[in-house]
């Protein structure tokens, strides 16, 4: 396997979010202070710096390919949310804001998730182009023009995580003590699961079978909603904020400790199985499987980024050491570039040939 530096850029504060445009030609990076940098994915040239959010940006997400900026020559559409309570939509290539919604009215917008869409964009369903935004206790479905498609009844506590079912028919939303699965079309509660603790992050396996939560009480909780099963994997050193599934839905990589812990989710699931422990010497800060290939990248706060292949047990195929603690990892849509954001504002793109 070959690793090479493609490009590097520097932002003025902690890189809190990284997102690739669906065509892989641009990368947006949000700094915790607020500004959002839009970079050329290939050269790293800074195309624009968007103002982001005045008190700090919390989340950025490029819309799927089917949803572009309206009008001729449309480019990729970027959504951002911040501590000012606003959700903003940006023409990333034009460097202009296209719409905004006051979603939180003072509450932080912490999670943005575009509804997954089929590649066929000819559907007349107006709810196809939909962004789910969580602001405090509110969950809103927004369209890219900045209007509210649906505002859900306030959750009892702050919504801490969102994850669309890969099919796009439902979204899972976590607030303290529970996870609900909400229908994307009629907005009703499909399922509700109790969880005793605070959830930091949610993810679905790509096949839609597993819903997984990383939690503050040093644990990972898994549900198979279709089979009414759930599993609790505890014993992590600290809270688990890092989750990533392999494209074949077999492996679930988790942070929360000095080892990245990878569970085998085939068949009956991870319970009773020994996880694969991928060793780091400091706390793992990000994990990311490739979208379609089989490489897993893991980052730890001492700056080490490891590349692993799990097919034959644990194999570290490469590693690099950065000078600043990595805060986020994002594979380009074609899996050829890994973008690494750092706590010190660095953005590094590595070319990965495997």
């Amino acid at each position, binding site marked *: 396997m070959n690793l090479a530096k493609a490009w590097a850029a520097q932002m003025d*504060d902690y890189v809190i979010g990284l997102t690739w445009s669906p065509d892989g030609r641009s990368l947006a990076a949000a700094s*915790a202070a607020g500004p959002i940098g839009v970079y050329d994915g290939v050269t790293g040239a800074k195309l624009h710096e968007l103002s982001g959010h005045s008190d700090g940006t919390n989340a950025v997400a490029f819309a799927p390919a089917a949803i572009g900026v309206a009008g001729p020559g449309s480019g990729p559409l970027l959504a951002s949310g911040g501590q000012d309570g606003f959700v903003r939509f940006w023409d990333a290539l034009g460097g202009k804001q296209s719409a905004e919604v006051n979603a939180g009215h*003072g509450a932080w917008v912490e999670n943005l998730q575009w509804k997954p869409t089929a590649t066929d964009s000819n559907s007349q369903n107006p709810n196809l182009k939909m962004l789910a935004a969580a602001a405090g206790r509110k969950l809103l479905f927004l369209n890219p023009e900045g209007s509210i498609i649906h505002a859900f009844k306030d959750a009892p506590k702050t919504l*801490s995580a969102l994850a669309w079912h890969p099919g796009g028919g439902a979204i899972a939303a976590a607030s*303290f*003590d529970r996870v609900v699965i909400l229908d994307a079309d009629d907005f009703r509660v499909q399922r509700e699961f109790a969880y*005793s603790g*605070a959830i930091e992050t949610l993810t679905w396996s790509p096949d839609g079978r597993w819903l997984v939560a990383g939690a*503050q009480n040093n644990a990972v909780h898994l549900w198979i909603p279709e089979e009414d099963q759930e599993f609790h994997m505890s014993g992590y050193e*600290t809270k688990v904020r890092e989750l990533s599934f392999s494209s074949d839905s077999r492996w679930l990589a988790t942070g929360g400790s000095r080892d990245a812990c990878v569970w085998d989710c085939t068949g009956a699931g991870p319970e009773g199985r020994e996880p694969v422990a991928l060793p780091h010497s400091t706390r793992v800060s990000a994990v990311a499987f490739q979208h379609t290939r089989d490489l897993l990248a893991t980052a730890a706060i001492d700056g080490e980024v490891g590349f692993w292949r799990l097919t034959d047990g644990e194999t570290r195929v490469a590693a690099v050491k950065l000078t600043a603690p990595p805060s986020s990892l994002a594979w380009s849509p074609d899996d050829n570039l890994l973008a690494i954001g750092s706590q010190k504002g660095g953005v590094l793109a590595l070319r990965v040939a495997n």
Partner: protein
Amino acid sequence: MPADLRIPVTVLTGFLGAGKTTLLNRVLTERHGRKIAVIENEFGEIGIDNQLVIQADEEIFAMNNGCLCCTVRGDLLRILARLLKRKDKLDGVFIETTGLADPGPVAQTFFTDPEIREAYRLDGIVTVVDARHAAQHLDDGKEAKEQVAFADVILLNKTDLADAAALDRLEARLHRMNPVARIHRTRDCDIAIDKVLNVGGFNLSRATDLDPRFLEPEYPFEWAGLYQLAPGTYDLCIGAHSEGSEKECHHDHGGEDDHDHEGHDHHHGDDNELDIAFLPVALPTDSDYSTQSDAAQPAVTSATAAARDTAVQVFSDWEQSAKPGETITPGTILHRLHLDNGHAHFPVEVAHRGHYMLFTAHDVPTHLYAPGETLVRYIHDQDFRHEHSHDEEIASVGISLAGDLDGKRLNDWIGGLLAKKGQDIFRCKGVLAVRGSDKRMVFQGVHMTFDAKFDQPWGAAPRTNIFVFIGRNLSREELVSGFKSCMVG
């Protein structure tokens, strides 16, 4: 020693209407220009523009396998982690809790999570108490009591709305529950900001601020009185008279300070024995100490302290028995007085004019009569009983012991103690001398969670350990003996 660069956090507790928001607005106004984040439970009351105000939910959960003593606040973990990401560092964080909130989970959040613990320092818990309603709240439920027990600083607020006597009673009550907290009386929470910010609440470095009596070691006597006596034979009357007795002993308390013997109902050991020592005290007889003039105080203090130390020696010696009516002579002798139903008279022969200090093992009515049955008033007295909590389930234990601790034994003991009793121990704090380190170990805990680190060198200061526990149903004997078992040698 590098300075502690962590962001200081102040937790504000108090019942609804006590004045938390008033205090918060005051702090934010005075610290205008500083970057202070305020985490509050409801929006809308902060009157200062451009402040970072974040709404919190009370997401309380148990960190470790449902252990109730390790409950933390999930919302705070999330918000504090996000606030850390900005490189322009906060100057401070205020967390305002709801009126009925238990401060435990908030405080424990700063001990349990490594990321939060590395970046934030719990500076202090400030409890605002409404002078009008506090007594009622303290009687009604556990919330108000716990908020007092947790506090590093108590603002006795709205003093303009309560009368002086009620304020004194309330302050005394708060002090009994939590003798380590600094209590300030305020109107409209008007107080110098440095009294509530950067108080170093978990740091007992200003241990001299503590009530000295609270930290006194155990003494084998409960009461002492200082008398100025001329030569002659005095009558020492112990206990209240039985009915029909000729001489009334109990009608007069015999002192200026209204030493209220009858007010306590303590029965220790054998009611028909009382150990006493009657010690000469080296004080010049030409001054009038009874005026308690400021000028005379240092002399009295040092003389009585010396007498106290002598008395400790005397009380560890063999006793001399005295039956009722047998003569007592002043000196370094432990007298075991035999009483008749808790009562007896003993002649005391005083050969020289001077000061004498009477130490009694128990706090029982004690009166001294000069020839002619004139009551002799003591010019100074001291209560050596520890402040047992008579009316509150929440109380505190302070230990002060000179010498070095064994680090491992200390760790085992405190770890075991908190694991077993953590639910009942709200706060514990200590400044400790550990063998092998020239630095002070600063210890702080909330329920089962605790943190210990070395800070500044002892330097010329005496290596005296101070340890304070505030909680429910604490056994002083158990804590003292446990702590002593950690001492070296």
